[in-house]
């Protein structure tokens, strides 16, 4: 067995085991962390397949951004798992049925009969010095430029829509206007009063020291 093969089996088993742990572990933060590990080992497999650009982007996008926000939410809400497990036995047959149907469908669509080595023989390893970032970019911005740009535009619309739908301005909250804060001039906040200087006359030592008779003469 070659070194790559050993590496692949290690990474693949880590991927499968951690993916299983995501749905079996009780603590939601642990589940999120197992998902992070799944992404990591998937990225490693992609890098092993000489798709280093995709592998690194997977880590960058999913581990760096998506899962951070996920953790952020999971840590803030206190998920009580007990009521969620209530109907487990009752819903089990339906769940198993749906899962089986999905596995059969997947096997039919991407199974060995369609994507096996007969129909897709293993590609020759790319020669040294192949820049697959360059290759991806060239395909993405020439052959698939419309699909790519339209997908980007739809995502942008989705972001704008999500923000527009969820934004509400509460009337009882106080907001700060940073521009107004920065625009403040000295004259708006500060008034310098010119007062004539008067020589302080201390009548007696007791008048100053006694706490209740605090009528200090200016």
């Amino acid at each position, binding site marked *: 067995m070659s070194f790559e093969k050993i590496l692949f089996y290690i990474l693949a088993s880590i991927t499968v085991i951690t993916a299983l742990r995501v749905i079996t572990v009780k603590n939601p933060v642990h589940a999120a962390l197992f998902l992070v590990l799944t992404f990591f080992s998937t990225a490693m497999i992609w890098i092993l397949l000489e798709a280093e*650009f995709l592998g*690194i982007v997977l880590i960058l996008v999913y*581990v760096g951004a998506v899962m*951070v926000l996920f*953790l*952020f939410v999971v*840590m803030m809400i206190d998920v009580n798992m007990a009521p969620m497990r209530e109907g487990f036995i009752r819903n089990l047959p339906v769940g198993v049925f749906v899962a089986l149907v999905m596995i059969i469908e997947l096997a039919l669509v991407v199974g060995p009969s369609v994507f096996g080595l007969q129909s897709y023989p293993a590609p020759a390893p790319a020669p040294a010095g192949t820049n*697959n*970032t360059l290759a991806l970019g060239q395909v993405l911005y020439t052959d698939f430029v419309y699909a790519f740009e339209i997908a980007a535009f739809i995502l942008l619309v989705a972001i704008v829509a999500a923000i527009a739908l969820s934004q509400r301005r509460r009337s009882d909250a106080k907001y700060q206007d940073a521009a107004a804060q920065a625009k403040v001039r000295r004259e708006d906040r500060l008034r310098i009063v010119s007062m004539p200087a008067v020589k302080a006359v201390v009548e007696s030592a007791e008048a100053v020291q006694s706490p209740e008779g605090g009528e200090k003469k200016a």
Partner: protein
Amino acid sequence: MTEFLSPVLGWLPQTIQFLIVTLIQIGIIILGVTLAVAYLTYAERKVIGYMQVRLGPNRVGPKGLLQPIADVVKLMFKEIITPAVANRVIFYAAPIIILLAAYVAWAVIPFDDGWVIADVNAGLLYVLAVGAAGVYGVILAGWASNSKYALLGGMRSAAHKVAYELAMGFALVGVLMASNSLNLGEIVRGQSGSILHWYWLPLLPMFAVYFISGVAETNRAPFDIAEGESEIVAGFHVEYSGMGFALFMLAEYANMILISALTALLFLGGWLSPFQGTFLEPAFALVPGIVWFLLKIAFLLFLFLWFRATFPRYRYDQIMRLGWKVFIPVTVLWIFVEGVFVYFKLGPWFS
């Protein structure tokens, strides 16, 4: 390096030779970065001391030079305390994750022309991805400590790191457009010519945004809201003692050095001499590139210390405003401007 060791290792198979050489290189970098971190803490205390008309550490060894070693020894012998009901595994994993991320990124940093452990094509993306993984250390430390101040620190850090990572990413897109490469060595080679060929000039707004975001990413003052001693005690690492705390400090300073190194590579010409293309070039021809690189890193690190001595801490909402409403629009706008530059092949940079 391989040629250097070939009389000693020549009899071994090629793979084993490669492995040994790489391990030695990794060892040198880890040792170097750790020593640099130790003396960066000393430099920080001295520099800020002088800025505040104090002396800084001056008791341990001549001029206090052994102070970092005393600190390390002290931290190693301190008791490690685990808070009650803390999640032990994650509590101890967090400082290791953050330290790992701070060191692993050095694999793709070229110290001189070709002096790099892994000369990968997607080096810039690799650095970004590793930096993204480092965010977990802070968040997990905050969560696993089972303490409200630590949790608040972790939350703050999660929110602000996502914001500044975006700005940093956009700034890197600018570098990518100018250099046409993701390989850090290629990026530096694209800047050769003179000090005016370095990318700081055509990408001036990106340079500023990148470095300031870098200060924010490393949780340094004035962006250290994740620690925020005056509001949330010490934020995410409030429950850590002894070596756990030491690892967080080590990671913070290693990240500072890393950000300085990256800024030097991306915008200040990496190992290139600042006198290139001037009459002074032959006079400095003997200076090796790594010296210029280290000098640039040292200068940027000094800026880090200077910022800390000068600015008061930002308020949390101001940090978010600066990240989302100022930095990201500025970088996006400059990407458009740069697109125009590239189209018209402006100056020596985009030809």
